[in-house]
């Protein structure tokens, strides 16, 4: 088609609102596409990737002894100054933390503490549901940190879940593997 004809075509289209009609057709198509909404917390829940930086956890070694040697390097490197470590020495002469507190309200989840640790004792795990009504509850001690879930193994995704408010607010899920919500997104 010659350029002049092309131009007339565009003008005719413009006169009959071809552009507006295109837009309407597009939004109409979208109306019948699958929503990408993740219905958290009622029906679905996000499983984090293994590299996800959530709530910290402290690791134990093979003997069940806490790995941390209370060197306080994590406390030093922390940009928010939210780790407090007080060491003690056990019978065998090994240093361990008597007190190990992280103020989650101040933490920015940078992961520097994990990088700095020489003993591979602290890491940021998969847990992300720890909101609270009082900031005092967000100061987590050593024994709580030892019990926190570790790194995720799922590789991300959405799973079916159920909101349970019987005792506490809890989002329960049973499936270990999630579906990839990304493929739901409709693209032109």
């Amino acid at each position, binding site marked *: 088609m010659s350029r002049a004809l092309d131009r007339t075509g565009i003008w005719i289209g413009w006169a009959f609102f071809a552009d507006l009609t295109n837009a*309407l057709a597009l*939004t109409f198509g979208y109306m*019948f596409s699958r*929503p990408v*909404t993740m*219905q958290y917390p009622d029906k679905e829940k996000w499983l984090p990737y293994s590299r996800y930086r959530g709530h910290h956890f402290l690791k134990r070694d093979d003997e069940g002894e806490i790995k941390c040697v209370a060197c306080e390097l994590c406390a030093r490197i922390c940009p928010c100054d939210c780790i407090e470590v007080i060491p003690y020495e056990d019978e065998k002469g090994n240093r361990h933390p008597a007190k190990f507190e992280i103020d989650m309200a101040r933490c920015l989840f940078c992961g520097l503490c994990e990088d700095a640790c020489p003993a591979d004792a602290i890491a940021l795990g998969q847990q992300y549901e720890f909101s609270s009504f009082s900031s005092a509850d967000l100061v987590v001690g050593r024994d709580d940190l030892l019990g926190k879930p570790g790194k995720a193994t799922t590789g991300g995704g959405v799973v079916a879940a159920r909101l349970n408010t019987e005792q506490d607010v809890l989002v329960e899920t049973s499936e270990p593997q999630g579906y990839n919500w990304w493929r739901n997104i409709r693209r032109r």
Partner: protein
Amino acid sequence: MELVVALGLILFKVALLIAILLLLPLPLTWLERKIAGHIQQRMGPMRVGWHGLLQPVADGVKLLTKEDHIPAEADRFLFKLAPILALAPPFVVFVAIPFGESVSVLGTKITLYVSNMNVGLLFVFAVIGIEVYGVIFGGWAANSKYAVLGSLRTCAQMISYEIPMGFAVIGVVMLAQSMSLLDIVRAQANVWNIVYQPVGFFVFFVAGLAEAQRIPFDLAEAEGDLGAGFHTEYSGIRFAFFMVSEYAIMLLTSVLAVILFFGGWNGVLVPLPPLLWFVLKVAFFVYVFIWFRFTFPRYRYDQLMAIGWKVLLPLSMANIIITGVAFL
């Protein structure tokens, strides 16, 4: 006795109309949010009731229980008057709107309209013009720059769009040889007016969008640049009045489009009850309104004026002339 029955019937019809018009915004807001959600690949309200069906009720309770705030510097009288002025006219207009011919219940024929005025169309346009005062007073009385700007825009917008709208329906009046909405529908028994008056319908619909203050012409309450426009300072039940008024006008525009251009309750091909036909057509237009809202961006103010005066007005006049030449 006859008189009492007739009077009772009218009262009943009016009460029914008011109830329907007051309650209809509830499902409409739900629908609007649902359609908005799905157009944007979201789900819309999901948590209150089944698929969020009770969300409008929750919103209504919220609006009713909220503090009804009047700014300190506001003109208190006008501030209180404005929501009523905005709400009443769309309700009054429905008195003149026919929803069908008549049905017979228990042997008595009941007409599906409150009154068949022989100047119905004129009445509709005259009364709906009053609604603008609600918007203007509301913006003025609030004593806030955003509200006043919203009102100013509304003023200009209403004037520039009511003229082409009025001209657009003249073609229809010429075809039906009557201003009565009932006669206009009857005249379309065989061929709908949209066949003869596509341009008229186009002008009417665009002007109707502007009249109902819907996107792409919702300049009066442009959230982005004016806060919420003329109702920036309103809260609680008074704000709800404006919302109900907006939905009633949207409904009215849809109803008028159906009556004037799409054959009212006259069906085509499929024999459905006339009232059902009417409701279906109106529902379609309501959907189109919502669909437009989530498809188009808002026009700029000068573009709005240019469309009104440079496109719609000449088009509507040309439409009248061509109709006159062709049919008279």
